[in-house]
C-alpha cells in the first residue's frame, strides 16, 4: 500500500494557540453590505500581542464564534499584508451567520485560526493565474487577488472570471477598477441579466472556454459550488490544462478545524486540514461519487 500524499500544498501559517479550542476576542471595526444577504465584517483582534503575531496565507479560514450560538468556518478575505484587520464576507444562511448579521460595529466576536491549506501562489509564481469564482466563492479568493496585486511582477497574465446568478450577485464590484489598475483582468458573467447589464450572459465555464491561455504555464484557482468546479475542471481539460493545473477550494461541515472531529471528511481527506484548497488530481475521482 502506497497512497498518494494527501496534499500537494504548502502549509499556511500555524494557528495562534496550542489548544485548538482556545478563541481570541475580536472587535467588529466595520460592516459593509455586499450583495443581497451578504455582508463583510472587518475584525480586529482585541489583544495587541495576539494581533501582532497573527498571520495568514490567502485561502485559509478562521472559525468565528458567537457564545451560545455556535461556530462557523469563514474564509479570510482581506489583504494578507495587513493581518491586523481581518475581513470575512458572510452570507446569512444559518444559525451562526444569521446571528452575525444582527451584530453592529463595536460588537465582540471570538475567532480562532488560521486553518487550512492556502492557494498555491508560491508554486504558480512565474506563470499565468486564472481565478474562477462562482458567487460568494470570490470571497475565498479576494486575499489571493490582493496579494497578487501587491506582487504583480511575480506572475504573467492574471485573470478573474466571476459568475453570478444576477448582476447584483457579483461580489466586490467596487473593487474591480482597482484590480484592473493593478494589471488584473476581470471578466464577469451572469445567468439572469437585468436591463442595465451589458456584459456576458451564461455560465462562468463559457468565459473560460473563450479565454486565450497558454496551458503549459497557467494555473486555475477555482471556488464555487461543487458542480460548477467540476465543470471548470472539465472545461480546463478541454483547453489543455490537466488536473494537476487546477486547484479548488472545497466546502464541507467543519467543526474543530484541526482534523479531529471527523465531520468534514471527504474520502480520505479532512477538508479542514488537507484542504480546503485541493489540487484537482487529488480529488478528481472522489468528486464524481454521489453522496461521498
Amino acid at each position, binding site marked *: *500500500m502506497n*497512497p*498518494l500524499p*494527501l496534499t500537494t500544498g504548502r*502549509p499556511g501559517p*500555524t*494557528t495562534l494557540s*496550542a*489548544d*485548538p*479550542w*482556545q*478563541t481570541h*476576542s475580536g472587535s467588529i471595526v466595520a460592516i459593509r453590505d455586499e450583495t443581497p444577504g451578504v455582508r463583510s465584517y472587518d475584525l480586529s483582534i482585541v489583544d495587541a500581542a495576539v494581533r501582532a503575531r497573527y498571520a495568514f496565507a490567502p485561502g485559509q479560514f478562521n472559525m468565528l464564534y458567537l*457564545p*451560545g*450560538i*455556535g*461556530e462557523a468556518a469563514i474564509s479570510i478575505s482581506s489583504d494578507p499584508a495587513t493581518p491586523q484587520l481581518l475581513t470575512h464576507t458572510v452570507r446569512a*444562511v*444559518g444559525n451562526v451567520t444569521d446571528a452575525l448579521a444582527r451584530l453592529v460595529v463595536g460588537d*465582540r466576536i*471570538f475567532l480562532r485560526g488560521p486553518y487550512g491549506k492556502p492557494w498555491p501562489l508560491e508554486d504558480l509564481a512565474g506563470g499565468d493565474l486564472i481565478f474562477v469564482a462562482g458567487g460568494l466563492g470570490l470571497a475565498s479568493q479576494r486575499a489571493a487577488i490582493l496579494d497578487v496585486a501587491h506582487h504583480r511582477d511575480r506572475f504573467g497574465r492574471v485573470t478573474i472570471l466571476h459568475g453570478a446568478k444576477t448582476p447584483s450577485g457579483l461580489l466586490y464590484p467596487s473593487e474591480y477598477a482597482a484590480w484592473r489598475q493593478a494589471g488584473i483582468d476581470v471578466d464577469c458573467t451572469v445567468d439572469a441579466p437585468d436591463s442595465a447589464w451589458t456584459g456576458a450572459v451564461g455560465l462562468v465555464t463559457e468565459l473560460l472556454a473563450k479565454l486565450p491561455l497558454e496551458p503549459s504555464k497557467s494555473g486555475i484557482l477555482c471556488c464555487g459550488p461543487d458542480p460548477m468546479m467540476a465543470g471548470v475542471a472539465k472545461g480546463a481539460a478541454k483547453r489543455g490544462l490537466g488536473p494537476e493545473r487546477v486547484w479548488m477550494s472545497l*466546502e*464541507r*461541515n467543519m*467543526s*474543530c478545524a*484541526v*482534523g*479531529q*472531529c*471527523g*465531520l468534514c*471528511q471527504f*474520502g*480520505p*481527506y*479532512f477538508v479542514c*486540514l488537507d484542504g480546503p484548497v485541493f489540487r484537482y488530481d*487529488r*480529488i*478528481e*475521482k*472522489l468528486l*464524481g*461519487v*454521489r*453522496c*461521498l
Partner: protein
Amino acid sequence: MSTPVPQIGDRVILGPEALQRLIEVLAVEYRVIGPMVADGAVVLRDLASANDLPTGWLDEQEGGHYRLHRDESAGPFDHVVGPHSLKNFLFPPREPIARFERVDGVWEECAPAAPERPLAVIGMRGCDLAALAIQDRVFLRGESGDGGAIDPAYQRRRNGLFLVAVDCRRAAATCFCHSTGSGPAACSASAGRQADLALVDLGPGPADGVAAGEGPRRYECRIGSARGGAVIDAIAAELPLWPSPPEDVAAAEQVPVDLERVMWARQGSGGGPGRSLDMENIRDLLYSNLEHPRWLEVADRCLSCTNCTLVCPTCFCASVTEVADLSGDAVTRERHWASCFSLDHARMHGTSVRHTTASRYRQWLTHKLGGWIDQFGTSGCTGCGRCITWCPVGIDLTAEVAAIRETPAPSTGGTP
C-alpha cells in the same frame, strides 16, 4: 519481597489479596476503573474493590447478541470485552471544551477547568491497547509535528493514565484481533502495545488442604514501567510477593500463543464460530469499490442507529453543542460523540451530503479501514468485534469486506 524496588521487566506472582491491594494502592493516586457487571453486561466503571470484578460471569457474543451467564469457574478477567473501552474515559462521550461568561454585556472566555484525578484502568486487553495507540494518533497527532493538533484534555488524561493489562484466555465468536494484528497478546513491544503492569491469570493454584485447582487464583505479573514497579513495591511492603518461577513465566507466555492458535484454527476450519478480516490491500479495495452494489444491500439491513460507532474503541467523530444556563450569561461548549450514521454529520447548507444509509455505511467502513490509513498510517480497526455484537441487526464488517473482495467492481469509484 525484601529485594530492592522492582524493575521494568521483573515478574512476580500476585494472589487474590495482592489483586485487592493493587486496587487500594492505585486508589491513593488514581481514579480506578475496571470491569464489572452492570445493566446485563460487563462494563467499565469505578472499582471500589476486587469484589466488584466480574468473577463467575462469562459472556456469550454473536452478531446482534450479548448475554452473560454464571460460571463458577470463571475468573475476574475471563469475560471478553463489553461495550465500553478506554475511549469512554480518555475521550468521554460528553465533555466541556470551553466556557464563556457575559459580564456587564461583554463575553469573556473562562480559564480551563482544573484537571481531574488521573485514571488507572484495570483489565485492558490487546484490542484495548491497540485502540489506545490508534486514538493517540488522532488526538496527539500534533506531537509528530506534521501540522495536526493536540487535544489538551486527551493529552492530560493520557499522560496520567496507569494501565493494567490482562491477557485474554477466551475469545468471543465476534473477536478477530488475530487477523488485524491487535492481539490476542495484550502487550507487544513490536506493535507498540505497552502497559504499566501486565497480568496473566494462571487460574486457581495448589494449596494446602484443598483439592487441586481449588486453591487461590494466581496472576503472573510483568512490570512494564517504573511507576508499575513502584506500585508493586507498595504492595510488597504489606504482602509477601514471590518472583515468578520459570514454569509460571512459561505458562503465562503460552496463554496468548494458545489462544491465537485457537482463533486461527476456528476460522480456518470453516465450521467454527470465528471471524477474520483480510487486511491485504484493504484501502485500495474499498476505495476502488465506492459504487459497489453491496453498499445498497447492507443499507437494507442497517438501521443507521449509530451503535457501531459508539461502541467502537477508535471512532473519534465529535460535534460541539452550546449549552447555556438559564440566565443566558454563561455558556459551556460541550463536545459530544458524533456518528457518521447520523444525518447531521455531513450537514451543509441545510441538507446532508450523505443523505442515504448506503452512503453513511460506506463512509464508516471506508474510513475505518481505508481513509484511516491515509490519515493516521494505521487502519482504525482493532478486531475487537464490538460493532458486530452491538449491531441490533448483526451486521458484520468482516462479512461486508469479504463480500466486496469476492466480487470487486474495480470500475466504480476511484482510488484517490
